[in-house]
């Protein structure tokens, strides 16, 4: 059997904001169905990196292929790419003027050109999967943070994405709501979805991750399977970071 092309392949990726060197020489491969968890101190470039994966930011040098498409600022295929790559944000970013159902159907209807009936069927199906079928006709502001984030996950899934990116999906949530979101993400992982998750939820990472990545100052410092990552990380900096966040 021949090796399938990786879902995400980054080679020598560099990114600058003006003079600030945000990503330094990133090499990374995510294969189909792989769950990757990226952690690291704030400002280390984790968010910037995954925002590059769906073209919300663009790298300045090196090469990045996602789902067979070369990501670059002038690429005509960038919208095709974004339809295949879902993104879940820290601040949910639901559309506040649309109901939950409309939030879920607007992408499939306007971008994928599905009929309203088809789109609503898919939407209700995914609302079931994130365990809030009864909230379909409410507005986002009427939901709790955890519910809003699950709607945001469903909104991405409604586009029938092949890769899901999570940018600190539980950081803006009250503690008692974190688990309901992580549970949904775990269930999603079991379906075989390719996932890249920026998070500090190490319990989730231990359960779900195939690969752990630790970043600092725009560099990948450590990249290893979770067994090794949590017990015997090769870099001192990573060990210190883990000590700090696992202390409690």
């Amino acid at each position, binding site marked *: 059997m021949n090796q399938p092309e990786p879902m995400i392949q980054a080679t020598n990726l560099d990114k600058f904001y003006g003079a600030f060197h945000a990503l330094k020489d990133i090499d990374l491969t995510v294969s189909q169905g792989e769950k990757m968890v990226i952690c690291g101190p704030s400002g280390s470039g984790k968010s910037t990196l995954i925002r590059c994966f769906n073209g919300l930011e663009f790298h300045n040098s090196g090469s990045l292929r996602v789902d067979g498409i070369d990501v670059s600022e002038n690429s005509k295929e960038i919208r095709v790419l*974004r*339809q295949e790559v879902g993104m879940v944000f820290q601040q949910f970013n639901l*559309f506040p003027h649309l109901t939950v159902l409309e939030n879920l159907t607007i992408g499939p209807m306007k971008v994928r050109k599905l009929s309203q009936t088809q789109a609503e069927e898919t939407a209700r199906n995914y609302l079931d999967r994130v365990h809030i079928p009864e909230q379909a006709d409410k507005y986002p*502001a009427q939901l709790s943070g955890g519910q809003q984030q699950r709607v945001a996950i469903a909104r991405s899934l409604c586009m029938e994405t092949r890769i899901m990116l999570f940018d600190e999906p539980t950081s803006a949530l009250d503690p008692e709501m974190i688990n309901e979101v992580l549970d949904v993400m775990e269930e999603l992982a079991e379906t075989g979805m390719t996932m890249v998750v920026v998070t500090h939820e190490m319990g989730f990472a231990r359960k779900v991750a195939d690969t752990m990545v630790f970043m600092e100052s725009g560099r990948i410092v450590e990249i290893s399977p979770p067994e090794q990552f949590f017990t015997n990380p090769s870099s001192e900096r990573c060990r210190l970071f883990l000590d700090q966040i696992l202390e409690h």
Partner: protein
Amino acid sequence: MSGLKGQALPKPPPIQRFFGSVPVSVAIYLGVIALIIYGSFQGAQNMGYNWQWYRIPQYLYTFTDDGFQWGEMAIGLVATLKLSITAFALATALGLLIALLRLSGLVIGSAVAVGFLELIRNIPLLVLLYLFYYVLGPIFKFDRYTASILTLAVFHAALISEILRAGINAVAKGQWEAAQSIGMTTGQIYRYIILPQSVRFMLPPMTGEVVHLIKSSAIVSVIAVAELTTIGRNIISDTYMSFEVWFTVAAVYMAVTLILSVGVTYLERRYTVDH
């Protein structure tokens, strides 16, 4: 200062309390208004002005053998509203175009937008009207009515584009990113996500702009386009009732713009985003 916590604020001095109380304020306000009205009437009296208010209603409406009929001023008001609505529709379309050009991020786009903006903002409205009527009118063969509409539309488009731009910028950046990441085109993002949400930011200043436009439409009377102000002038030249007519014209403009403001307050409640 922590010792003061929980204590009542010290009372203001008695004189301030006297002038600050509601009945006294109202009395002063009414006094000033009465003084102004009395002064004007006295002044008019001294000029020997002959008040003829009874002749005014016929210019608003009449009852004849044929039944109810609108008067000249009412017809003038309709003309003013027609002119204003047409100009406002054009101004909004042009303003949106300018705002989007400015936001496009294209160097040429924002250069064109800023150029237009500075050009229009720095020419007096009256001069702009003369330019359209005396210069561009003969060149492009349009009449005084078209010249008026174009003047008002272009002048207000510049102001409206800034309102729209501010409204668009007021929508959180995350909305753009969320819409982008489900693969929407820029046009779709504006149409389905950004513009519907910016309406609530735009409504209050846009109302102000409509009011402003209706009022500035009076300026087209200088090129004799038949609208409320022109008709007011015509009535005066027939009857010499300048005081009554100008008071009435002012009151009609005020009534229209006040009704508009109240109506929009209701609209604003409808467009509140957080349900």
